[in-house]
């Protein structure tokens, strides 16, 4: 039936260091200096270690629900590495590796999952927004942040992180569409880990690739091996350049896998096969990078042992800091609702109650004892 072709395109996949250790020097060389590689690997290791400790904290009742990052460290970290330190990072909740690279104190992430808003009081100079709990909503903030940077001609871009599931939300579409049509300097980085809790990727997107989501907006889009640090650095760096210099957004699908449960509240054995997990364990980004560094003579077992110890210490200290912080006073429930509290809030804060106190505040019984701290 067709009478004329009006659009033609194709989507590419980038891999540099594959799961078998095969490395493409043409694409990879010069991408990441050796000393950076080592630091990146150290970050991955610390992140992985935090996952283990956090899991135990949750199990022993010292922390609430926690989502492990295990398996996805290369995507998060590679992207953070490819960005300028003053570019916005707009994460979901599985970006520990990247956030730590940026300088986010480990205890802030812990505090968040310990049910404490102080974990989100992110120093402005980190250019990171808080973890996003409602799925798919933060990409619009990234678009707005990038827009503001463009408005002020700051040459700052925004990179936003999200999962495969998030691409099903209407807000994802609107963020992509705003960015493409208003020419906003945004990098959309989808961590396709094949699962949204128990729902398989096929239910979120039945197209051959998730990357092609970008075609709907005429956006540059590309797929890469998300467990390959080099590939991630390469595609994010290129996307960041395009955003910074041309105000052109990019959609990146980083193919990766969540090795752990969705969160500590989840039991992935209920819905996925161990065989699949095992397959991906072999593709673990840490193993892969370590192998590469060993081959290159950058790494050895004693360095590894040292690093493990260091990571253990670092995490333990962070946990100590997070647990050591005093419980916030109950006035904290009130104090950040507005810049200035209105009379009703002021009264509720002072009396710690919502009931009226008769004809005049003086007639009130004393506030409950909980006021103490």
């Amino acid at each position, binding site marked *: 039936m067709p009478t004329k072709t009006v659009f033609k395109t194709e989507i590419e996949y980038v891999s540099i260091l594959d799961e078998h250790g095969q490395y493409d020097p043409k694409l990879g060389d010069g991408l990441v200096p050796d000393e950076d590689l080592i630091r990146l690997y150290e970050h991955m290791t610390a992140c992985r270690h935090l996952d283990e400790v956090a899991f135990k904290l949750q199990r022993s009742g010292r922390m609430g629900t926690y989502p492990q990052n295990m398996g996805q460290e290369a995507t998060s970290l590679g992207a953070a590495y490819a960005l300028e330190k003053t570019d916005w990072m707009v994460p979901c909740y599985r970006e520990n590796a990247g956030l730590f690279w940026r300088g986010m104190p480990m205890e802030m992430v812990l505090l968040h999952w310990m049910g404490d808003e102080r974990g989100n009081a992110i120093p402005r100079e980190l250019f990171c927004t808080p973890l996003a709990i409602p799925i798919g909503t933060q990409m619009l903030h990234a678009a707005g942040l990038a827009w503001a940077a463009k408005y002020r001609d700051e040459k700052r871009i925004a990179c936003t992180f999200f999962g495969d599931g998030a691409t099903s939300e209407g807000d994802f579409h609107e963020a992509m569409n705003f960015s493409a049509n208003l020419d906003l300097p945004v990098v959309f980085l989808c961590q396709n880990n094949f699962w949204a809790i128990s729902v398989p990727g096929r239910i979120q997107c039945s197209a051959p690739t998730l990357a092609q989501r970008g075609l709907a907006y005429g956006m540059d889009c590309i797929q890469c091996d998300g467990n390959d640090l080099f590939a991630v650095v390469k595609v994010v760096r290129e996307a960041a350049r395009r955003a910074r210099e041309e105000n052109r957004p990019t959609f990146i699908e980083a193919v990766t896998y969540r090795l752990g449960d969705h969160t500590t509240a989840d039991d992935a054995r209920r819905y996925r096969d161990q065989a699949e997990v095992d397959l991906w364990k072999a593709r673990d980004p840490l193993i892969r990078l370590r192998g590469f560094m060993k081959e290159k003579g950058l790494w050895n077992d004693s360095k590894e042992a040292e690093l493990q110890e260091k990571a253990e210490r670092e995490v333990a200290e962070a946990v100590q800091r997070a647990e050591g912080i005093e419980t916030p006073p109950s006035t*904290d429930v009130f104090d950040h609702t507005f810049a200035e509290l209105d009379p009703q809030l002021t009264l509720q804060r002072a009396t710690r109650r919502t009931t009226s106190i008769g004809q005049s505040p003086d007639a009130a019984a004393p506030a409950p004892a909980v006021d103490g701290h």
Partner: protein
Amino acid sequence: MANLTLVQAINLALVQEMERDDRVVVLGEDVGPNGGVFRVTEGLHKRFGGHRVIDTPLAESGIIGTSVGLAMAGLRPIPEIQFEGFLGPAYDQICSHAARMRTRTRGAFTVPLTVRVPVGGGIHAPELHSDSPEAIYAHQPGLKVVMPASPYDAKGLLLSAIRDPDPVIFFEPKRIYRAFREEVPEDEYTIPIGKARMVCEGEELTMVSWGASVVQCMQAIEKSGRSIELIDLRTIYPFDMEMVAASVRKTGRAVVVHEAPKTCGFGAEIASRIMEECFLHLEAPVQRVAGFDTIMPYYKLELEYLPDAERIGLAVDEALAY
């Protein structure tokens, strides 16, 4: 007759109604093989198949919007929204379409839809997993809003909701999902939407509440040692003003308890209606023990936010002393 938790009672209602009526389908995020993040739909996928128990894309507006279409075609969809904090993206499909379709078309199209939503705080959950938006939906004409406070009620109310010819938001207080058990008959029974439950009778004061707060109210009553009549609303819209008014005319005093923020919470509606209909019987202003007019805090401070027996007791004392 079995001794069931609230989760189990809802599960039982779903199973029985799906057996009885093949127009009933269950859809949402993780409701399939995983049985829902709270395991409310556990076993349904296995029993009824992927045809009737459907894992959808992660999109709340899509879940409700397609459910509106399913219902317009005559099915009885039961979408699950994973937490009340994620009702937001579906707000428009609920309020602009589900609630309006019958009026819009003078009854040519109707939307017999039951939206199941875990609700409320107290379970140490992350942000946006602990809110209580019942007043929002009670303010939208064309919706019914139900919130059971016990396993027995949950089963009977859910059956009524599914069979109701109009859209129902069915809030499930997650704090009591597994907090206690109750005898729940295997046999079919329904509890009418719009009828409250008299939890205990009393002479001195009327207490009105719903959802998980009913437990806090019972604790406060026990502590107080006073003769207090406790009404569990069960249905937020339409609510059982008859029972509330009769009680307040008898006691002359009332305290309303809920988790949602005070301002424009459903307590305001009840207090106003009590004033309108029992004015000459009132010995004291109706008191509202509610969440503060602040964002529900992260869980470290959630118990500072939620009404507890102490705050309720104080209100009771003052109302009685008035």
